């Protein structure tokens, strides 16, 4: 006997399954198939089965079911806890980009208004530069500066929310890495489920794609760290142990990601040991 979406078929004929898309979907999930014994359904042999009158109706009913399954599948994917975190952190990074590009342009603009604008101001942080530039220029120019400042405050608010959300969705990774960097790690991996299946060595170079591929293709030195470089214990580590810290941190993150995916709660015993190991890796003799 072979089971298909519309019912079961054997040498005696076919037993159509009655029910709407929802019931059919449930039935499909319960069916088991092995490729060795499976015989694909052939419309040309459908004469024995009288559950529909013609091919058009067959396709119409099948499509109805498939649309139902596709919509349900899409909804299920977006319901996962990390889906929104992903969009939040990507929005955050894009806000940074936009704000930097705008600031650079405004700076160029400002220099044409005020040719005496000294280069020494160039090294000022953005927050100090912007109010200074706002003193001159046309109303439109000041409006642009206001918008950049507005973007900065949006960014700050969003960053806090990302950290909060990351503490909730990936508590163990956040404890080791800080919420923001942990969120970026999930974003780079694509999802928490993907991240939890990566080995430590992959997590270590996540986000260093260009360096990694140039290493694989051309034999340049391998990258020591990707996104995790943004974590203080990596970028503050002395250069000679930085690679070691990155490696130890990444391997602990691989465990943390699995805890986040499958236990969905913080595991203090693990965090404590992991923090000590990572701190020890950063000590130079």
């Amino acid at each position, binding site marked *: 006997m072979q089971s298909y979406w519309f019912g079961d078929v054997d040498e005696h004929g076919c037993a159509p399954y009655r029910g709407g898309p929802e019931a059919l979907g449930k039935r499909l999930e319960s069916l088991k198939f092995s490729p060795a014994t499976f015989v694909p*359904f052939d419309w040309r042999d459908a004469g024995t089965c009288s559950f529909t009158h013609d091919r058009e109706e067959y*396709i119409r009913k*099948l499509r109805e079911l498939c*649309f139902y399954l*596709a*919509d349900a*599948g*899409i909804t299920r994917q977006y319901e996962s806890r990390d889906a929104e975190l992903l969009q939040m952190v990507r929005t955050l990074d894009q806000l940074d980009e936009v704000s930097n590009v705008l600031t650079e342009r405004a700076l160029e603009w400002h220099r044409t208004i005020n040719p005496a604008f000294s280069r020494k101001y160039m090294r000022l942080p953005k927050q100090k530069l912007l109010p200074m530039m706002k003193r001159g220029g046309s109303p439109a120019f000041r409006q642009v500066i206001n918008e950049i400042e507005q973007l900065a405050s949006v960014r700050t608010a969003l960053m806090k929310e990302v950290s909060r959300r990351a503490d909730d969705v990936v508590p163990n990774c956040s404890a080791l890495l800080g919420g923001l960097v942990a969120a970026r790690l999930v974003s780079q991996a694509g999802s928490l489920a993907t991240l939890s299946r990566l080995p430590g060595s992959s997590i270590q170079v996540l986000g260093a794609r260009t360096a990694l591929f140039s290493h694989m293709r051309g034999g340049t030195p391998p990258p020591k760290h990707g996104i995790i470089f943004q974590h203080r214990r990596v970028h503050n580590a002395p250069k000679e142990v930085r690679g070691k810290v990155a490696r130890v941190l990444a391997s602990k993150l691989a465990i943390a990601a699995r805890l986040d995916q499958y236990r969905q709660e913080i595991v203090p015993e693990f965090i404590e040991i992991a923090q000590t190991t990572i701190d020890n890796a950063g000590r130079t003799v």
Partner: protein
Amino acid sequence: MIWVENVLVSPGEGGVYGERMMKEFRVWDPYRSKLAAYYYLGGEFELHQDMVVLYLGAANGTTVSHVADYAGTVYAIEFAPRPMQDLVAVARRRNNVIPLMADAAQPERYAPLLEVADLIYQDIAQPEQVTIAIRNSIFLREGGRMLIMLKTRSIDTAEIPGIVLERSLAALEAARITVLDTKWLDPYHKDHAAIVCSPVSD
């Protein structure tokens, strides 16, 4: 295949992804679609009205919509939710497209929804692309064809594309699938090869 003034087109309702129209036909861009590139480079395997096509890696449904203009029924498999949303939208406007949200690497999950196919078209970025194609070949009618768009860089970034192709062909032959034709898709798609093949019938 329909050509208007040396431009490949397909008959159907336009406005799927902002494609250009020519005399009521939809222009099929070889730089966007690997299948279009295959025809521009003299590909001989043609689609026709009574074909059932199993399309693995349907993505946003742009190439799917052109295939559906030529073929009878298209079973479009896509795994990722974002492109799936677009694919569903495309399928709603085309009565012969059946969208399936499933992983092409696990054919047993969608097997009961399919029917015997005349053509399996595969365009997926997976290192195990060829294995996946072989696993799906159970859906093929006797004498049916497989059209594999081999993404050599997804299979092995570091290896020379020609060697990746050779290995893939060997893997197909080992699975008793006869390779009928191969074509590099340069200049339209870099490091991509089209493989036309057919399982040996017992």
